[in-house]
């Protein structure tokens, strides 16, 4: 990755500037790859944050995690075949989502079905990743599949990905009320004519889009962090759903920007040359934010009569 070297200056009068240069390494906002990463990362962050709040409300965190993991199967398969990883991520997510849906009619069965589908697809993933090692000469592909590749995403993908993220958020906005009603009160929802199955399906599609896009930035294994982390922190801090969604988005955006910034900075850090993974920094910031959030006690609305 091309870097512009900055003049850090040694004179005492420039001490503040040099500190700033440690925090924000020179050339940060001017680098094309960083710009792409920030745009893609922001879209993914917003999408994951909004979808994540509903994933937690619906108790589907395990499914969300599994959908991310199975992305590795699709991505590694895609690399073997010579197709861009994102289509593998999305394809595997859709396949897994459909399988879990078909295998489980009731909520109780869903966890088990998810576990079975996850195991099956991860088994394939083990095979594909091994084959990549045998067949391919490029190093680091596996690392990117599992832990993210936001700096090496092709710029041509950025716009479609942003479009997909926007579409997913729009879908969630569209099913907001019936989704909430059918989550809290399924019989009541049906009695009002809510097509509960359709609403669940639409949300599942939005969830797959969110998780698989996040798998590009964070990797198949860590996409859950962006889905669940900011949402969980936000939910702990407020009783109001609308506010929880806004908080979740803000947290996810700050989290992602900091993660990208720190990863860029880390090119100067040992072991020199490549920089640490973005996903590591995003998770680190997320854990800090979550811990701070948990330390803030929940308050009651006030005295009841």
């Amino acid at each position, binding site marked *: 990755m091309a870097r512009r070297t900055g003049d850090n200056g040694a004179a005492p009068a420039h001490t503040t500037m040099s500190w700033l240069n440690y925090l924000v390494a020179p050339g940060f906002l001017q680098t094309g790859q960083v710009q792409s990463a920030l745009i893609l990362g922001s879209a993914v962050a917003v999408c994951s944050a909004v979808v994540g709040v509903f994933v937690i409300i619906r108790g589907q965190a395990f499914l969300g995690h599994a959908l991310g993991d199975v992305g590795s199967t699709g991505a590694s398969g895609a690399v073997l075949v010579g197709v861009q990883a994102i289509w593998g991520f999305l394809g595997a997510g859709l396949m897994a989502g459909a399988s879990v849906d078909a295998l489980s009619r009731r909520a109780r069965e869903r966890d088990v079905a998810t576990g079975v589908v996850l195991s099956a697809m991860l088994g394939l993933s083990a095979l594909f990743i091994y084959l990549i090692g045998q067949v391919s000469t490029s190093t680091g592909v596996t690392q990117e599949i599992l832990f993210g590749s936001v700096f090496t995403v092709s710029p041509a993908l950025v716009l479609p990905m942003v479009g997909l993220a926007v579409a997913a958020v729009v879908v969630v906005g*569209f099913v907001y*009320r019936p989704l909430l*009603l059918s989550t*809290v009160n399924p019989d009541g929802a049906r009695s*009002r004519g*809510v097509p509960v199955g359709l609403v669940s399906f639409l949300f599942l599609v939005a969830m797959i889009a969110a998780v698989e896009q996040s798998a590009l930035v964070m990797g198949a294994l860590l996409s859950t962090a962006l889905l669940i982390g900011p949402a969980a922190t936000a939910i702990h801090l407020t009783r109001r759903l609308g*506010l929880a969604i806004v908080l979740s988005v803000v947290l996810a955006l700050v989290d992602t920007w900091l993660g990208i910034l720190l990863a860029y900075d880390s090119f100067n850090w040992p072991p020199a040359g490549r920089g640490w993974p973005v996903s590591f920094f995003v998770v680190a910031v997320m854990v800090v934010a979550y811990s701070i959030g948990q330390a803030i006690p*929940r308050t009651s609305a006030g005295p*009841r009569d």
Partner: protein
Amino acid sequence: MSPQLPAMQFDHVDVAFGRHMVLRQLQFDIPAGAFVGVIGPNGAGKTTMIRLVLGLQRPNAGRVTVLGQSAGRGGREIGYVPQSFAAEPDLPLRARDLVGLGLDGEKWGFPLPSKERRRRIDACLERVGALGYADEAVGTLSGGERQRLLIAQALLTSPRILLLDEPLANLDIRSGHDIIHLIAEIAKETQITVLFVAHDMNPLLGVMDQVLYIAQGRALLGSVEQVVRSDVLSELYGQPVEVVRVQGRILVFAGDEMVPLGHEELLPHGRPRSLPVEP
């Protein structure tokens, strides 16, 4: 008094799940404005009956008519109060938000805040006595408080029929009495038709106009004096049933086992003999 259309009409209704007949030859009219207690042991078909009225269950034979029309989905004229709702303590949903779903929860999109919307929600919250905890998270509320929210939610569309599916099931006796009192008040104020499902009729003795007694898949509608009698219920159950009145309470015992009904047990099916003609 001018004759009013019955709120609900069941005309030779049969419901079967596979080969199992759940409800047989239901034939009765529920008068408008009546407070009807739907009583019977668990598994007798009370919930199926509710689902018929809501249009969630189609009869295998016969017709169910609600407010002059075939029972169908999506009616805002029917307020449905389910037994409970699932909510963790940290679910980010305030009481007023849950209740608000009763106003427009079936519509697509998300609600835009408006003064009118808030006013209507507040009015229903106040009617059920829940205004004091309107801003609390629903997951932190007690069973009685949650039941009031579900009632408020059902009332938001000013329905003409109120269906309560075992509202007392998770409540202690005191809360149960409060809820019954609340429903009775609302029924008197608004002339709404109430179907109140319970497996013990005693708490409802003071407030219900009629009892719809369901057992062995068959149903009888009438006053408590007419229906809850040893001979009548013995015919219904197809086995000896003893009705005992003790200090204003009614206890129903199944003959051989002397099991008081009001426990959650399904009696073994007897052979129903011919039923008395309804008054």
